[in-house]
């Protein structure tokens, strides 16, 4: 289980709801939890992206499978996060695996849909020109279609990232750390520690906004030809 690295602060049931002193004293723990949160989010997004690209490639090659794949991803998306963790824990225990399966699964719907939509948006002339230049089907996908689909893919990634950051707070139930640790620990101290709750909630909102911004900027850099794409 996780080590409690937070030093409790006596007598903080008094009026000031937020105590900078606590933040000061626990700066190391805050950084550690933030890093954990980013790693868990990054791992979930990475796994989700790899699986999504695979399933999107299948959907694009065998068109009939697209509604089936998307429908399944949609049904999985509906599953409550705590319910998913609860069903997995008896099999995998309080582990990284139990957290990663649902987290990665939740990204599938939006990522697959956006990859397929993005590739579909590539103009046919571009495709024909590439085929005329001797591109094989695989090369066409990896070197032409996917790069041109990038803005739409990143739009989906932004939604997936922001959602995942929120869900990682729930995985603190599994003792995996992340900012949810503070949220949960804030009510488990002898007297509830509002500073911990606010730090946990506040930082995860800030993290979501920053990651959204970074991805938006990366789209500008990686796909400067495109503007104004929205996740669907």
């Amino acid at each position, binding site marked *: 289980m996780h080590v409690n690295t937070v030093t409790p602060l006596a007598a903080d049931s008094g009026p000031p*709801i937020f105590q900078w002193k606590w933040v000061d004293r626990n700066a190391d723990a805050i950084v550690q939890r933030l890093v954990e949160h980013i790693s868990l989010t990054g791992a979930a997004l990475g796994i989700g992206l790899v699986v999504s690209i695979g399933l999107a490639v299948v959907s694009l090659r065998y068109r009939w499978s697209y509604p089936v794949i998307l429908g399944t991803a949609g049904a999985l998306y509906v599953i409550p996060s705590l*319910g998913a963790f609860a069903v997995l824990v008896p099999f995998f225990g309080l582990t990284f695996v139990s957290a990663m399966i649902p987290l990665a699964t939740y990204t599938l719907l939006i990522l697959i849909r956006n990859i397929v939509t993005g590739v579909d948006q590539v103009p046919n002339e571009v495709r024909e020109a590439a085929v005329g230049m001797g591109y094989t089907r695989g090369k066409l996908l990896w070197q032409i279609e996917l790069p041109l689909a990038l803005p739409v893919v990143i739009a989906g990634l932004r*939604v997936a990232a922001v959602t995942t950051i929120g869900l990682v*707070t729930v995985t603190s139930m599994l003792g995996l750390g992340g900012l949810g640790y503070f949220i949960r620990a804030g*009510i488990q101290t002898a007297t509830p520690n509002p500073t911990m*709750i606010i730090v946990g909630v506040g930082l*995860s909102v800030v993290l979501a906004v920053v990651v959204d911004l970074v991805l938006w900027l990366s789209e500008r850099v990686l796909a400067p030809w495109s503007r104004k794409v929205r996740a669907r």
Partner: protein
Amino acid sequence: MSFLDQLNAWLADPNRWSWTDKAGVPYRTLEHLRFSLLALAIAAVLTIPAALWLAHYRRGAFLASSAVNIGRAIPSFGLIILFWFLASRWELDTTFWPLLLALVALAMPPLFTNTYAGVVTLEQETIDAARGTGYREWQIMLRLELPLASPVILAGARVAFLQLIATVAIGAIVNDGGGLGRYIVDGFAVGAQGYGAIFAGGLAAVLLALVCDGAFALITRVATPRGLALQNARRD
């Protein structure tokens, strides 16, 4: 004891299928639904009229486009606990208000955005025609824009409701009720001995969500105005 044995023991509880006992799955399911529906209704009353009005007069477009993003960034888990802390500090009923407030706050963004988008994307000719035949502005909103946008609004309600189902379960962490999440949280509290309860609660929550999603699909089909359904069918 393997978790399947624990599951069997859990299922063998005599009150497990009671509608009135707190151990009962039907009791917890109703509790889960009651909380989710109440929050959805409050959020709908708070957002749909406002969004309808704003969309009709094309105001607040920025709010409509960013509401869902803001809503997504707020962790539901943190929001519940934050409200729980505030409620306990202000000596309010902590088994009811924190969860309800968090749920309403989470359900509002998708409802608002979808109502707004549903109205804004309607064909302007339809609205102009109604105006030409002497419809007042409020009549256009209530008799034209609201029913025509209803499929999009219901899609927003569906997203919101499923999020509510997921969040009520999390609410069991601070809440005495918490619907089916009660089993999960209580199971986690006792550690490995609770795996049976954790699994059963998780499965029940998953099934409830899937059933509700299906129910919403049916409601959307029934509630779509006939003219709109015909129009969509022709377009396909």
